[in-house]
């Protein structure tokens, strides 16, 4: 291989070396830029997450405190409201093993537990879907439910994040006695009864997956119930 300027550029390895150097430079720049911005991105993620949890309890809190729902879920006051009304519940490591949920949070007002919120997940059509489910203190009813992370088909499966779909779960019975509620799907334009959920048209798999996530979380909650109750009494 010649060492003269033009000689190196004529070499058949030059394009490979050129691309390699260029890639290293740009990957380096990107890595450095991402490192510098990581904190901001993470902060926003945390804030959105906290806002979602607050929104789930917003109706209940609004009734009890008399504060407008919009004020409770005001993005500017997320941290303040979260600290005021939401507590992360301590659960021993043994209990964590029994449930796949990542976080347990409870909405508490003047030492009264208004409900628990569980971070639940399961498989959708294209990947993992993550949701937050707020339930009453005795786990019998769903207060509110939301899917906050999903990779479903835009315009079809991803419609499970729309208001009409998630609002269907509010107030639904989850565990009655010792049995988990058996939800079933009906057409989007049909009228659903207490144990039915209107599915997203063209996204039966995603709709069923959402039900499966809720039902399997409920089965875990049913087993966990006495322990949590015990801790609550303390």
């Amino acid at each position, binding site marked *: 291989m010649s060492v003269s300027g033009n000689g190196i*550029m004529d070499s058949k390895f030059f*394009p490979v070396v050129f691309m390699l150097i260029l890639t290293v430079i740009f990957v380096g720049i990107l890595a450095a*830029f991402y490192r510098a911005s*990581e904190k901001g991105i993470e902060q926003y993620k945390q804030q959105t997450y906290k806002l979602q949890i607050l929104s789930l309890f917003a109706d209940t809190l609004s009734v009890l405190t008399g504060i407008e729902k919009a004020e409770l879920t005001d993005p500017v006051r997320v941290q303040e409201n979260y600290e005021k009304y939401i507590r992360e519940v301590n659960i021993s490591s043994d209990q964590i093993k029994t449930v796949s949920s990542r976080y347990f949070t409870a909405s508490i007002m003047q030492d009264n537990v208004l409900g628990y919120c569980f971070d639940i997940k399961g498989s959708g059509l294209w990947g993992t879907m993550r949701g937050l489910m707020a339930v009453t203190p005795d786990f019998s009813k769903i207060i509110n439910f939301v899917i906050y992370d999903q990779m479903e088909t835009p315009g079809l499966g991803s419609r499970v994040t729309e208001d009409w779909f998630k609002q269907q779960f509010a107030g639904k019975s989850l565990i009655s006695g010792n049995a988990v509620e058996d939800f079933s799907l009906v057409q989007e334009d049909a009228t659903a009864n207490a144990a039915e959920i209107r599915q997203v048209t063209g996204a039966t798999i995603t709709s069923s997956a959402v039900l499966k996530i809720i039902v399997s979380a409920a089965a875990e909650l049913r087993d966990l119930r006495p322990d949590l109750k015990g801790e609550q009494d303390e």
Partner: protein
Amino acid sequence: MNKKDIFITSAFKENSVWKQILGICSSLAVTNLMLNSLIMGLGVIFTLIFSNLTISAIRSYTPRSVRMMAQVLIIASYVIIVDIFLRANLPDISKQLGPYVGLIITNCIIMGRAEAFAAKNNPMDSVIDGLGTGIGYTLVLLCISAVRELFGFGSLFGWQVLGSWWLKWSVMVMAPSAFFLLAIMIWLINDHYYKVKKG
């Protein structure tokens, strides 16, 4: 060509949207709100300026066989920088723009300018060409979004211009309106242009 001519040509005479019919996808997708269009336009201007500058600066060392690969790598890197910046500093807008920021990579305007201009001209001229092309593209986006936001939401840049008496045209918020408006815009401008040229 002097620098002023380069700018005028790339921004108006050879405008990438209405003359070259490039970058149509994003012109249709992000033009329902003026703020989104402006941010998208700024992202494209940033990418165009820096990708043109880099591609032009290394043009004499770039082997012909891998030049397109190198261009895509450079363009993609700048687009990812825009994406990370938006996610960290303007998260709400980043969420609204959704996948379209990432799709700047595939915007034909940027690759087009890299191949047609930056790969053959000096860095300074390439920067001006990038700036001109980007501004031309942003102007088109802003024109379409001004009409769509005004009729669809009664506002401009989020400021309520029309009162509550205004019946919002929901068709303006939906994608088809962008097709009509873009087509009308291209028609009017080119019609005027050819009349001037003939005259």
